[in-house]
C-alpha cells in the first residue's frame, strides 16, 4: 500500500491513475480500453445483483436462493434502507453465483458479492458518476493486487479473511477514495477493515460456495462501510495497512488446513454441516470429515495452495 501511495505521489497522479499507469506498463493496453473493461465488469456486477434480487429460485441444494429478495422485500428495520439493500445485494450476487450464473470474481467468486453490494448501493445515495465509479473500482483493484502479492486472496491459501476480507478492504478503499478521502485515509480504511477480519476461517458447508459464503459477503460489506466511515472521520489505526496485510498472510499460513476451504472443519464439520454434505451426495467428503473429527487432527490429504 505504501509503495503504491508513494508511487502515485511521485508521479503526481491519483491512486486510481497510478493503477492505470501500472497496468498500461505491464500490458501495453490503452487507458480507454482499461476503463471500458472495468465498466463492463461493473455492468456484469449490476446484472448479477438485479438477477439475484428478482429471483425466488433456489440453488440445487436449496441452501441459498430467494433470500436476497426476501430481505429486500422485508425492508429496513434497524439502520435504514441503504443498509438493508447492501446486505441484500451481497447475498443476491452469491445466490446467482451458486446457480452457475454470471458474476465477476472480485477478487474471487466466493467473495464476489462485497464490492458490488457496497459500490452499487452507495452509488445511488452518494451520487457518484459512472467515471467516478470506475475510478473506485481501479482503487479496489489496486488494493486486491497488493493483498495478493503480500498475503493471499484465496480461501485455500489464507481462509475467508483472504477472500471476503480482501474484498471488504477493496470496497472500503474504493468508497473512501470516492468520498474524497486522502491516500492516507484510503490506507487507513484498508487497515480498519482487515484488523476486524483477521483469523476468519473458510469453512464452506459441503464444500459449496453457499453457506456461510452468502452471509459472510453481507457482513464483509458491513465491515467495509464501517472502516470507510471511521477512516473518513479521520480516525487513525496505528498499525499501517501493509503490516496488517502481512499479519493476515501470517495467520493464513498458520491456519490449519481444515479451515482453508477443504470443508473439513468449522461450520462444514458440524453435525448439521455433515448432514448437509451427506444429503448433497458427497460420501467421500463426509468420510474425511468423520475421520478428522475423531482423530483430533487434520486428516486432510489436500494441502493448502
Amino acid at each position: 500500500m505504501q509503495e503504491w501511495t508513494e508511487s502515485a505521489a511521485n508521479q503526481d497522479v491519483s491512486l486510481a491513475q497510478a493503477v492505470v499507469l501500472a497496468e498500461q506498463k505491464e500490458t501495453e493496453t490503452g487507458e480507454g480500453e482499461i476503463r471500458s473493461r472495468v465498466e463492463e465488469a461493473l455492468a456484469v456486477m449490476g446484472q448479477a445483483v438485479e438477477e439475484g434480487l428478482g429471483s425466488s429460485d433456489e440453488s440445487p441444494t436449496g441452501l441459498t436462493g430467494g433470500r436476497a429478495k426476501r430481505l429486500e422485500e422485508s425492508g429496513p428495520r434497524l439502520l435504514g434502507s441503504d443498509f438493508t439493500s447492501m446486505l441484500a445485494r451481497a447475498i443476491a450476487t452469491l445466490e446467482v453465483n451458486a446457480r452457475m450464473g454470471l458474476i465477476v470474481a472480485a477478487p474471487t467468486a466466493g467473495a464476489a458479492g462485497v464490492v458490488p453490494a457496497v459500490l452499487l448501493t452507495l452509488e445511488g445515495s452518494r451520487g457518484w458518476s459512472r467515471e467516478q465509479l470506475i475510478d473506485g473500482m481501479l482503487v479496489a483493484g489496486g488494493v486486491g493486487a497488493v493483498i495478493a502479492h503480500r498475503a493471499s486472496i484465496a480461501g485455500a491459501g489464507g481462509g475467508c479473511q483472504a477472500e471476503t476480507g480482501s474484498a471488504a478492504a477493496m470496497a472500503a478503499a474504493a468508497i473512501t477514495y470516492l468520498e474524497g478521502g486522502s491516500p492516507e485515509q484510503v490506507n487507513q480504511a484498508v487497515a480498519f477493515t482487515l484488523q476486524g477480519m483477521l483469523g476468519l476461517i473458510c469453512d464452506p458447508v459441503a464444500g459449496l460456495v453457499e453457506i456461510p459464503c452468502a452471509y459472510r459477503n453481507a457482513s464483509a460489506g458491513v465491515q467495509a462501510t464501517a472502516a470507510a466511515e471511521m477512516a473518513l472521520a479521520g480516525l487513525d489505526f496505528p498499525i499501517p495497512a501493509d503490516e496488517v496485510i502481512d499479519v493476515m498472510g501470517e495467520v493464513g499460513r498458520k491456519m490449519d488446513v481444515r479451515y482453508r476451504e477443504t470443508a473439513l472443519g468449522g461450520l462444514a464439520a458440524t453435525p448439521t454441516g455433515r448432514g448437509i454434505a451427506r444429503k448433497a451426495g458427497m460420501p467421500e467428503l463426509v468420510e474425511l470429515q468423520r475421520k478428522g473429527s475423531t482423530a483430533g487432527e487434520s486428516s486432510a490429504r489436500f494441502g493448502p495452495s
Partner: protein
Amino acid sequence: MARLFDILGPTMVGPSSSHTAGACRIGHLAQAVVGGTPDGAHIGLHGSFAMTGEGHGTKRAIVGGLLGFQPDDPRIRQSFAEAAEAGLEYDFETVHLGEEAHPNSARLEVRRGSDWTEVVGSSIGGGRVRLDRIDGFEVSVTGSLPTLVVLAEDVPGTIAEITGMLAESGVNLATMRVDRTGRGERALMTIEADHAIPPDLATALRAKDWVHWIRQIAAWA
C-alpha cells in the same frame, strides 16, 4: 504482481473461481495444446477437484473448456449436451497425483484425430491456472501471455534459432523453459511472449526438420 483483471475478474459462470473458472481454463489449455477441440478425453480429477467438484460444476467446466469455451460462456452449464453435439467423448475418474500435487489439479488425456497429448494442470486461485506437465515434460504455462509450445529434437542450436526467429519478427520473449527426456532425445520448449506469435513465424518453425510439432496458446482475453 497479480494483474488488474485477475483481481477485478474473471467475469465467469459461478460458483467457484478455482473449481469452475479455473477448471474451464485447464480444459481450454488442453484443447489448445492438442490443436483444437478433441474427439476424446480421459479426465482425471485430483484432490479437492475430485472431492467437491460435483457441486461446483467442475466436470461441466472442464468439458466446456475442452470445447473452447471461456469461463464466462453460459454454455458451460449445458456443456455435456454441447460435447455430444460436437462429437467429443469423455470420461472421468478420480486420480491421485501425489502429495506434492496442488489440491485443485486435473490430468487430461486428450485425443484429436491422430494427435494425442496428456496435460496436468492446477487451479491456483482466483481463476488463475497453470499447466504443470505436457506429455510428461515439466512446464509452467499460465495462458496469461501468448505461448508457443515446441516439441523438438534435443540438438545443439535449436534454442538460438528459435529466439533468433522471434527477435527477427519483433516478438519480445518474456519467459522460456526447456525440459527434455534425456540428452540427445526430445525437448519440450515453452515460450511466453509479450506479443502474439505471427502466423508466418509459426509456419517457418513448423517446417524445421528438428521440430516435431508446435502449438500456440493465445493469452486470456
